[in-house]
Every structure is written in structure tokens, then in C-alpha cells.
């Protein structure tokens, strides 16, 4: 579904503040996959996701979305943006319409859909994000923080993209709000058969949801594998300045002290299932 071939990108190239954001990145993401993207600030995450929907153009290399090479002549970049829905960080700051419904319709109407179709899609998207129908006629600015976030995500979802990219969708939310959004994202992924890229700082969140985890470090792919493959290298993750789930650290400590615990533990449930028989013996 998504293929990057030797993609590089440099900010302010030629100037004194030149900064290589992506350095010869190649990767493949399959249709319907749920990929967690991790890396500290400046690792190239946000550059990568902007390349994926044509907001930025690669300096060299190819970005191929659903078989279309974005750099080819005659490719309508807007069509790519509808195909690859990008939900930026703090998306609630992009709300502008009089009502929530109108705001969610903005994307679909830009696609050239009829008012009726757009509204149908908007209602479906609102439902997917868990936004109650009675809020749709309200002003988006009267919603609570978590509701605004959901309205903004619905605005992307209503374009019915094939790929949904979410940049820190839970930033600034409290634990309950965070869990609700993550649950809804998982739901969308399953029910709409979306390919999802979830960019997050929180290892715990990514570990819970992703099929595969992509770890970026100073513009390069550091790791790309299943959560247990990635968390098996917890020492390396910490070395490049990333957190690992607390439970992985507990398991690492136990193993270091000689306990028979496998590598790559990343959920409390797994750790519990391994420890319980050992302790109950």
C-alpha cells in the first residue's frame, strides 16, 4: 500500500541551518496493516508522514502510494490527500465551521461530493469516532477537549481514505480520554479495513495496538518489526533516547537477575501469564 524507495529530505538545504530530516529511507507497509511509528522529536517522523500525502516532496527517492508514484507527472496531489488521510497533532485547532457537521463535511465537499453524500459520510465518521449525534449541530468551539479531538479526526475519516495517519492523537488528553480515542482507532482499523499509521511518543499505546512498529532515529529506519521483536531490543531503544514500557523494564530486570523470562515482553498481560505459573508452583 505504501512504499518508500531511498527517500531523502533536507530542510533549508544549502543554508547554514541545513538539517537532514530523512536519509535514504526505504520501507513497505501492507494494506490493512496497523503500524506504530516511534522516534523522538527530530527523528524524521513528521517529515515522513508529510511526504506520504504530498505535503512535502522528497529531495530524492520515490514515494509510492497504492501503486502511484507521487513524483510522476500528471498525478493529482489532491487525490492522494483524499486517499491518505493525515490527522495532524492537536487537530482540534483546524476546526473552523459554524457546526460540527459542516466542519466534518469540509473534506468530503472538497472532494466534490454532493451535500447529501457528504453529510452521510460525516454522520458515519462521527459515529465511528464516538461523537454523539446531538453534538453535530453545535458549534465545534463549544465541545470539550476530547470531543473536539474526535470531531477533527472524523473530519479526516469522512474523506474515507484508504490510509489513516494520526500524529499523536492522544497528546494532552487524560487517561480516560486517551483510552477512548485509542479504542475507537482500533475499531476504525478493523471495521473500515484501514491501513493505519499511528505516530506516538507513548510506547505503551503503540505496543497495545500495532501489528508492526517502525522506529526512526536521526532520519533513518532503526527498527521495523513486530512489537515483541522491537521490544526485545529494549537496551538499544533506551540508548537512542526512547522509553520502553515499564513492564518491559521489569521483565528485563528479572531476566538479568537470572529468572527464566523471554525477551520482548511488552504487555502486563503477557508478563502476568508468564509469572503466574512460576510463582504459583
Amino acid at each position, binding site marked *: 500500500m505504501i512504499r518508500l524507495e531511498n527517500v531523502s529530505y533536507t530542510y533549508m538545504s544549502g543554508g547554514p541551518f541545513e538539517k537532514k530530516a530523512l536519509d535514504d529511507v526505504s520501507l513497505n507497509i501492507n494494506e490493512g496493516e496497523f503500524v506504530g511509528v516511534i522516534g*523522538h*522529536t527530530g527523528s524524521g517522523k513528521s517529515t515522513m508522514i508529510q511526504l506520504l500525502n504530498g505535503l512535502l516532496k522528497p529531495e530524492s527517492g520515490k514515494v509510492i502510494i497504492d501503486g502511484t508514484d507521487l513524483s510522476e507527472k500528471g498525478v493529482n496531489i489532491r487525490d492522494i490527500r483524499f486517499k491518505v488521510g493525515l490527522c495532524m497533532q492537536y487537530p482540534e485547532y483546524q476546526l473552523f465551521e459554524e457546526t460540527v457537521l459542516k466542519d466534518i463535511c469540509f473534506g468530503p465537499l472538497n472532494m466534490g461530493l454532493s451535500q447529501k453524500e457528504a453529510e452521510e459520510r460525516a454522520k458515519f465518521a462521527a459515529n465511528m469516532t464516538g461523537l454523539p449525534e446531538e453534538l453535530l449541530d453545535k458549534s465545534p468551539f463549544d465541545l*470539550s*477537549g*476530547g470531543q473536539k479531538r474526535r470531531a477533527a479526526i472524523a473530519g479526516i475519516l469522512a474523506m474515507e481514505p484508504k490510509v489513516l495517519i494520526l500524529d499523536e492523537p492522544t*497528546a*494532552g*488528553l*487524560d*487517561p*480516560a*480520554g486517551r483510552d477512548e480515542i485509542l479504542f475507537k482507532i482500533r475499531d476504525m482499523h478493523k471495521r473500515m479495513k484501514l491501513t493505519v499509521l499511528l505516530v506516538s*511518543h507513548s510506547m*505503551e499505546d503503540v505496543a497495545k495496538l500495532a501489528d508492526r512498529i517502525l522506529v526512526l532515529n536521526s532520519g533513518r529506519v532503526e527498527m521495523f518489526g513486530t512489537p515483541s521483536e522491537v521490544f526485545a531490543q529494549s537496551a538499544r531503544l533506551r540508548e537512542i*533516547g*526512547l*522509553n520502553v*514500557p*515499564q*513492564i518491559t*523494564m*521489569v521483565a528485563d*530486570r*528479572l531476566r538479568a*537477575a537470572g*529468572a527464566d523470562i523471554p525477551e520482548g515482553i511488552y504487555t*502486563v498481560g503477557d*508478563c*502476568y501469564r508468564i*509469572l*503466574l505459573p*512460576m*510463582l*504459583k*508452583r
Partner: protein
Amino acid sequence: MDNIVIINNLVFEYKDEDTGERTRVLDGVSLDVRRGEFLAVLGHNGSGKSTLAKHMNAILVPTSGTVTVDGLDTADDGKLFDIRRRVGMVFQNPDTQMVATIVEEDVAFAPENLGVPRDEIRRRVDEALEIVGMSAFKRHAPHMLSGGQKQRVAIAGALAMRPELLVMDEPTAMLDPSGRAEVIETVKKLNRENGMTVVLITHYMDEAVRADRVIILDSGRIALEGTPKEVFPQVEKLTALGLDVPQSTYLIYMLNKQGLGLDATALNDEECAAELLRALENRGKGARGS
């Protein structure tokens, strides 16, 4: 005096301008902040945490009940600046707390407002930047700093008032993990080495476990209070209040549900691993013994 802040049965309501409806945000909070302690205030969004913080330096005044800071009643208008001078505030958004276009000028803002003599301002600015480890950046423009650095400058800006108390309202909510670690280390150091009283409002558990005392707000009331080791093992209550539990605490809670009788007060990976190893060792001995 042992308590820097004394809050007595604080009630706060605000009136909606359009509908005239009154909403009660704080509903009878009584709380003392002890001199030199590190107090964490937890609660989900809308629980009244931020409102409580804003009462500690008279940005808000109680609808009923009293708040005194260092013996001064916050409802007394004449004492406004005496109170604010004693309470340094740091907020969530690193971008909306800085006034000046250069770091050291920004740190100087509060002492300038207070009419502190020039030499003294210089001393305070240098000292405050030193404490937060930002001296090297004193001639930088704020917008060139990272989020964590901006928040450290904001802390320095508060410290330049020489406050008795530092109140921080979700100072890490908009930061990445390294920024969060920077800020929390700074705060912890301030508390430990400089004896600064700290009130930290947060919804990150890993930050709260490092406090001396934790209070949890829910619908404008104090729902739980105690040391982290008293509060966090109450997994069911915390979950019901919409809060997280550290994964270590949760693991032990689940194991204990199977009747393992582990020490439930483990709050971090180190303590949790130590407790599990102790239990594993005991099992081993028991197995060999029988």
C-alpha cells in the same frame, strides 16, 4: 508556620454568561500544603485541578471558604501582589508564558514588575537560569528552544520572584518524553536541593509516584489522599476515577488477585522486579525444602 497554603472548605462556582447557570467546580476542598513538600494533584480533565491551582495565587478567589498563602488571605485585594510574589506558577503551554524575545529578559520580567533594583535582578536571573540549567541559553530567542527548555525557562521566570511555593499546572502535558524527563528532573532537584515547596498538577502517574504526597480530585472534591505508596495500590478506585495505574503496580495487583500476597506498594520497575525476585526466591527455597 508549618503550612505554606491552608485551604479551608473551598467552594468555587462560575456563572455561564448566556444561560445564567451556575456550575460548581470545587465543592468543599480542604487541604494544607506543607513547607518543603512535593505534592502531586491528580484527577481527570474537568475534575477541578487547574481551578484549584489558580486559587493558590489569587488568580481566582473562592466563592466560599478561605485560602491563605503564607498567612495572607487571597480574598484580600490589598495583598494581591504579596501573594503572587510568593507563588511561582508554571502552565501547560510552553508558548504562551514567555513575554520577552530573549530568554534572560523573560526571566527578568517578574522582578522588573516588582521593582527590584537592577543589580539584584541580574543576580536573580543568573541564579534562576543556573538552577534550571539554562545559563548557556540566556541570550537565545525563546522560539528557538525545545518544549522542555521553554518550560525550564518558565520555571526560572517563576524562581526569579524568589517564591515560597511553585505551583505547576500540567507542565509536561505538551512535551515529548525527553522534555518531560527534563522538567520533572528539574522540579525534583529544586525540591530536594533547594527545599522548594512544589505543587505538581498532572495526569501522568510516573510523575506523581515521585511526589511525597498525592491527592486525587474528582468532581471538585478530594477523593483520595496519601503517600504514593498508600494511594497507588488502590487499583480499583483509581481506575474508577478514570486514572492510570503504573504498569508495575498493576502487575502485582493482578498477581495478588490470585492470592500471591506480594507487597503491593511497588511503584516502579525497580521495586516491582525486586519484589518479584524475592517472591521467586522464596518459592525456590520452599520447593527445595519440601
